[in-house]
């Protein structure tokens, strides 16, 4: 092996690194205990260079792995300049590169037999509970970190010589509500990191550490070159997009934000500026530095060739400008970042990809449905089916709709931008077995898609209630006031909504944020957000419109009014009538949103 710059060797070794990350992720997914880890798949694994560059990432919710692990690894180097084999560090501090307090990261330095730090592996998993002052890991109402109440670990050594420091674990067990589940997840996360460490040690022995270092440099250069080439082929231009998060506790007007995106093909650079935004708010909505950067990066990478590797090499070509003490920037302690991975992060990513769409045809995306609706609530109560036992669990019964893009319609079970659709949907039977609830309905909400040439995915209607008892649901929705926008003439998706169905059958509107108590015989009725459409709906393929009508995704009226497609009695496209409708649309329907 003479030089790893050879594209053949680079391919072979990159396969080896990919396989290691995949192995770490598989282990974590299968051994994890909490629903948020194994069902929502809210975890990630990655390999970093010793200097702290993200080298290889795997399949995971995108919000976890793009713009944070490097900051975390750098914090580890700062606090522990010399590391030893057998060390492991617990890190969940949003002020030191982590996403938010509920994501517990384990960093393991990979140290060769000469004691030299070669790589760092990172495994991060969202916890079922993190010791907040109330039983949710997404505490929107927290005015600061003290009110939030989570235990914060700013790079704390949790293993030495491959042995747990039990005092740290005892601290967690004293503060975290489901200590057994937490301990099970901790075992899974540390197990995954150790599997990555072992595999890298074997690879280093087999191929040689210096060769691996050479590979790492070449792989990052290759990724940067791919990214630069892709940007050079994009149209030059800039766009400023703006949006507003729905009103929330302590932010009665909501949070209005904007993003300025500039594509500079001549330099092979994209700039994202988030500085011109409000200061931190007294709420859990503030983004951490990691989630601000990552959300912007997701918006960019969703907009371009998906085969470009996602690592520090390609990230070098995207400059994200953030400001200190900004609600979508770098938070200043003690601002709370409790919901930093979802609500505003989704809004930021959506702004960026919509700006990309406005810059040129064939790139970018509309906005992905967003918000943690009651369809994804943390439900709690007393299970009386066998004795009397308290239960608390997050259920994932209905997802938000995906966004239309240049190539396809929105992905139905996308859920939100940060998850990238990786979340699994609960089985109704499993949910009803786990806790005393009945899920009466779960199906797509017709006519709730953002219309477009490529339409957004519709929202989902979910209706559930307690089974012989009562329950409490905690959630933190968005998109009930300000819907998810379309791009390039595409329409917005339908707003999300939440109601209580009383025993009489009457629907009563619910607040956008839980908690809410549901008594025996009552039900929660939730509709999740529809995704935005891409391109003008009256340019949508006629057969696709007829198919949507036949399959019950949209009504005939909507086909006529919005898509300007007439359907005959057999369900087929009436082409003559459609020609007339579409001719009218081009002259009169231009200002429709």
């Amino acid at each position, binding site marked *: 092996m003479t030089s790893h710059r050879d594209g053949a060797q680079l391919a072979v070794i990159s*396969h080896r690194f990919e396989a290691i990350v995949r192995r770490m992720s598989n282990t974590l997914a299968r051994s994890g205990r909490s629903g948020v880890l194994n069902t929502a798949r809210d975890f990630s694994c990655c390999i970093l260079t010793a200097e702290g560059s993200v080298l290889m990432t795997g399949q995971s919710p995108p919000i976890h792995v793009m713009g944070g692990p490097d900051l975390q690894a750098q914090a580890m180097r700062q606090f522990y300049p010399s590391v030893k084999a057998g060390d492991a560090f617990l890190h969940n501090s949003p002020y030191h590169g982590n996403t938010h307090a509920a994501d517990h990261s384990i960093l393991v330095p990979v140290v060769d037999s000469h004691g030299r730090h070669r790589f760092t592996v990172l495994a991060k998993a969202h916890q079922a509970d993190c010791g907040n002052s109330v039983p949710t890991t997404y505490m929107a109402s927290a005015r600061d970190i003290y009110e939030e109440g989570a235990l914060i670990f700013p790079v704390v050594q949790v293993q030495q010589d491959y042995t747990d420091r039990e005092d740290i674990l005892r601290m967690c067990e004293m503060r975290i509500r489901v200590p057994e589940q937490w301990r099970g997840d901790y075992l899974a996360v540390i197990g995954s990191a150790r599997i990555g460490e072992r595999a890298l040690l074997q690879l280093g022995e087999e191929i040689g550490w210096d060769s691996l270092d050479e590979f790492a440099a070449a792989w990052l250069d290759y990724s940067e070159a791919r990214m630069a080439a892709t940007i050079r082929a994009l149209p030059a231009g800039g766009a400023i997009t703006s949006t507003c998060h729905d009103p929330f506790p302590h932010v009665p007007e909501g949070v209005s934000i904007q993003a300025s995106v500039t594509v500079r093909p001549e330099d092979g650079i994209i700039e994202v500026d988030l500085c011109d935004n409000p200061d931190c708010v007294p709420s859990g909505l503030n983004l951490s530095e990691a989630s601000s950067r990552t959300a912007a990066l997701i918006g960019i990478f969703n907009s371009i060739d998906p*085969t470009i590797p996602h690592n520090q090499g390609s990230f070098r070509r995207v400059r994200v400008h953030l400001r200190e003490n900004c609600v979508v920037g770098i938070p200043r302690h003690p601002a709370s970042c409790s919901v930093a991975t979802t609500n505003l992060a989704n809004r930021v990513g959506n702004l960026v990809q919509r700006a990309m769409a406005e810059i040129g045809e064939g790139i970018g995306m509309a906005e992905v449905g967003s918000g943690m609706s009651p369809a994804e609530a943390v439900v709690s109560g007393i299970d009386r089916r066998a004795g009397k036992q308290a239960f608390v669990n997050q259920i994932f019964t209905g997802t938000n709709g995906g966004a239309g893009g240049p190539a396809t319609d929105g992905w139905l079970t996308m859920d939100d931008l940060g998850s990238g659709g990786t979340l699994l949907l609960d089985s109704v039977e499993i949910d009803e077995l786990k806790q005393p609830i009945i899920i009466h309905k779960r199906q797509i909400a017709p006519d709730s898609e953002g219309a477009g040439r490529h339409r957004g995915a519709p929202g989902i209607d979910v209706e559930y209630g307690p089974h012989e008892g009562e329950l409490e649901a905690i959630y933190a929705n968005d998109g009930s006031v300000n819907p998810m926008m379309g791009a390039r003439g595409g329409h917005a998706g339908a707003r999300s909504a939440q109601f209580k169905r009383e025993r009489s059958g009457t629907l009563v509107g619910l607040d956008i944020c839980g908690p809410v108590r549901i008594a025996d015989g009552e039900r929660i009725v939730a509709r999740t957000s529809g995704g935005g459409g891409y391109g003008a709906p009256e340019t949508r393929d006629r057969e696709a419109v007829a198919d949507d009508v036949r399959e019950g995704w949209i009504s005939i009226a909507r086909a006529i009014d919005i898509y300007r497609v007439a359907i005959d009695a057999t369900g087929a496209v009436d082409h003559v009538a459609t020609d007339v409708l579409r001719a009218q649309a081009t002259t009169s329907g231009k200002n429709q949103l």
Partner: protein
Amino acid sequence: MASDEPLRLSVDIGGTFTDLVIEEAGELRLFKSPTVPHDPVQGILDVLRMAAQGCGTSLAGLLGRAQTFSHATTRGLNAVLTGNTARTAFLTTEGHRDILLLREGGRRKPFDFTVPFPAPYVPRSLTFEVPERIAASGKVLHALDAAALEVVCDQVQRAEVAAVAVCLLWATINPAHELRVAEALERRLPDVPYTLSHRLNPSLREYRRASSASIDASLKPLMSAYIAELTARLQEAGLTGRILMVTSMGGVMDAKDAAAAPIVTLNSGPAMAPVAGKAYATADLGADTVIVADAGGTTYDVTLVRRGEIPSTRSAWVGEEGIGHMTGLPSIDVKSVGAGGGSIAWVDAGGLLHVGPQSAGSVPGPACYGRGGTAATVTDAVLVLGYLDPLSFANGSMTLDLDAAMDAITRQVAAPLGLDVIAAANAVLELTTEQMVRAIEEITLQQGIDPARAVLVGGGGAAGINAAAVARRLGSRHLIMPAVGAALAAAGALMSDLTAVFSATVPALTTAFDAERVNAALAQLRAQCTAFAMRIGADPKDAAITLFAEARYPQQIWELEVPLRYPAFATRADMDRFIEDFHATHREILGISDERSAVEIVSWSARARIALGRSSALLTARAPEPAAISSRRAYVRGSGLVDVPVRPLATILPGETITGPVLVESPFTTIVVADRSTVELGRSGSILIRPIHTAQEEREAA
């Protein structure tokens, strides 16, 4: 073969070839003839005629001596993949119309927005809601509305469907409502076949059950017709023996049972390879942990044997994981990757080499086929490296164009990488090897097997090219290339048993264990196994019954299969042993265990296995006609193109040890040993290779 010695026949229909393996007195012979896509039974009769001729007898003479005829077909699978199944209606609980549409969520490639959301297996327009509801306890919350059911039947009639699938929530706990629907369907649509989810697949999770039922129902018209036609034409040609269909669980079942639940045969293709792999690893090396790699023209299928058992999975997909459809039923765990001779090698804009995922298939095929293909493929690289004889490809049925291969590799790989053509071809092969290794590492990890400690068995027409390199990369001590390796699946069917699987959803927790209820379920499962044995005309005493629990730690979502040591939980000690077994299995497969935790059992299952005749006996291959030893210019790592001896399989004598480099040729495949690994003949006639692992070993061998 002009005796009246009874024969057993096995036919495996693949995309390109129909393979026939004949067993006579413990000896196997292999025949291959082109598949006839529009009339697969014709392809079967063709290969049978070819064999009859080879044996000096008539077709009727051959078939008249056959005791059994085992058959694996991808007919059902292809119908599902291409959407050519029957028009099927789906009936489900009111409010849950989108069970098949939503699947279980999960997107595999988060940044790739070029893949559309997949369509449901049965369209929404053919999905009908039945007003009814049963709770997790089995209690009826909302009685089935009989009048509404009649209206649903009216709608189904108007929809002119050829099959109906029924999946109601909690039918596994209380089947009353599904049975009421069945009664209505039989009365209202007497000629339309239907499948009830609780009968076919009594397991938790409505999507998987609904998917099982829908796939099964949609295959019924097609597979009943196929099996009826197959039976009639074979009997007309002289067959009097039993016709058996291969199942996705690596067993066989009577053809009429397969017609009643055709989904059970869906993934029969790769399911037999581990059965054969297990037999050869036992016969040649006495090994019980095996990796079986079956290399075809377009896919590379990896299966396993763990301590003598072939692991199965309940999360098998038809089509691509995440966007295909889940079968929901247990099937042999297979990892398939699109790596084959047709995979295309290319270099991207950043100068990185890729192999696949695009494939040139067999039409137009690799550049060297001379059928108009211009893409550089793995087969082209293999030819450039001298591993294939251009004049005797596929038993001499085809001539390969070396110049076209050189040209394609030069233009599409060597030039952009700045390498010479040989180095470029070798790079393509190395990357292919890496992809195969990755597939093996993934499945072995999932099943808790250390690949370096397992025996690797190579099968399939393209296996010989990479198998030795893959074994070296995995650190395997032994590689077995069975003499019938080119038809491993067909041979496996002759070594398999009659099998059936039954399961029961009786959730249980070890800390609050209702032994009476569980024991009743286990007794019921055993009774089902006994009934199965009697139905197929076997003595129930000959049925080997194994009971399993599908268990996990509470709150986990993946179950692990743990065999039960006892037929029932009689004492506390039985429970403790089971709990210990679970922790040990969890540790083995996932690397950790949580001794402090309770264990939750999601379902119980029983597997019945009834040995067929000589299936467990050692099967050796009849040696082909000997040919002369020759040599060919071929690539050897570290030496470049050199003269490498070519040894026809029949020239290798028992007890002889050959040190590589060497090319071993049999009529249907070439085994490449491009380093100083050693080669010898196994007891069954297989080729045994001991790979060299390190440069030091290489020097020592030299």
